[in-house]
């Protein structure tokens, strides 16, 4: 019994020291989002998220059949609402995605694709705390737009270049971005360049 208590005490003290060292390291480096989360943090956060999804969603099947029309609607929705962070192709390689903490996952990969329809739906509907993922849609299990998004997420790994080009036209753009695109296109076609380059592009997104 005494050895058990000593063992427990050592583990407890070691954990506290580990947390203190990690905490001191974080404070020293600041709470920047420029670094990607480490393996331990990602694993813990991912596990907590998995635990937090109610079990009934894990076996839930989509009520929507993935017809071309459904995938098209999902694509339009994705390009308009999701691509800013997740990118049109689901890679997460966007201006916002590259500096979020945690980074949006590459949704074409198995970590996402192996999630059940219900888990994807639950994540869209309820978001993920302490990340950049908000809760979309109305509470409940019958938001067809979110189910169509699930169908589109399943299609991400086989997205064609033609579909990607189409999506670029669906991405929301500010008047400044539209003007900037026109200036860049004009330059590529042989026209005069706008006065200052390079410059930081702070408001838009660049998703592909």
């Amino acid at each position, binding site marked *: 019994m005494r050895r058990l208590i000593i063992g427990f005490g050592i583990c407890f003290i070691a954990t506290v020291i580990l*947390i*203190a060292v*990690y*905490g001191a390291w*974080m*404070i020293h480096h600041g*709470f920047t*989002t420029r670094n990607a*989360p480490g393996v331990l*943090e990602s694993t*813990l*956060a991912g596990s*907590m998220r998995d635990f937090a999804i109610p079990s009934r969603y894990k076996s839930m099947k989509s009520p929507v059949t993935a017809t071309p029309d459904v995938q098209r609607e999902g694509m339009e929705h994705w390009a308009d609402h999701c691509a800013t*962070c997740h990118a049109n192709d689901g*890679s997460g*390689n966007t*201006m*916002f995605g*590259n*500096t*979020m*903490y*945690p980074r949006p996952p590459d949704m074409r990969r198995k970590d996402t694709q192996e999630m059940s329809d219900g888990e994807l739906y639950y994540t869209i509907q309820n978001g993920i*705390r*302490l*990340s*950049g993922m908000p809760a979309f849609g109305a509470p409940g299990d019958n938001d067809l737009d979110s189910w169509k998004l699930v169908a589109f997420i399943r299609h991400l790994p086989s997205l064609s*270049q033609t579909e990607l*080009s189409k999506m670029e036209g669906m991405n929301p753009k500010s008047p400044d971005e539209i003007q*900037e695109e026109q200036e*860049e296109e004009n*330059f*590529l*076609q*042989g026209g*005069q*360049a*706008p*006065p*200052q*380059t*390079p*410059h*930081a*592009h*702070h408001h*838009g997104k*660049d998703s*592909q």
Partner: protein
Amino acid sequence: MKRRTMIAIFLLTCTSTLLHAHGGMVHVMGTVTGISATSVTVETTDKKAVEVLLTETTAFLNGSKPSNKDELKVGDRVVIHAVKVKDSLQAHEIKFSQGTSAPTH
């Protein structure tokens, strides 16, 4: 200091991650003056030499068509959308056109 420590410990014990922040995409516009295995050098329209690093995920577009690094040539006009990482630029997308030369001002 105490407050910051408490915040850090709270966040750690919650195994949490923090909220997102904005970043900036840098646009580099000019003419290609050099291409290597890992980077593209551009003379911008205001005559500055800018090196942009290539990554595995850098996308190439010849006009509006998907392309690759092999099609990019010295002398091509380019518009590069890049992410600033510390003191370097990493290319996210390189859009280029051939057969047009940059104005000399």
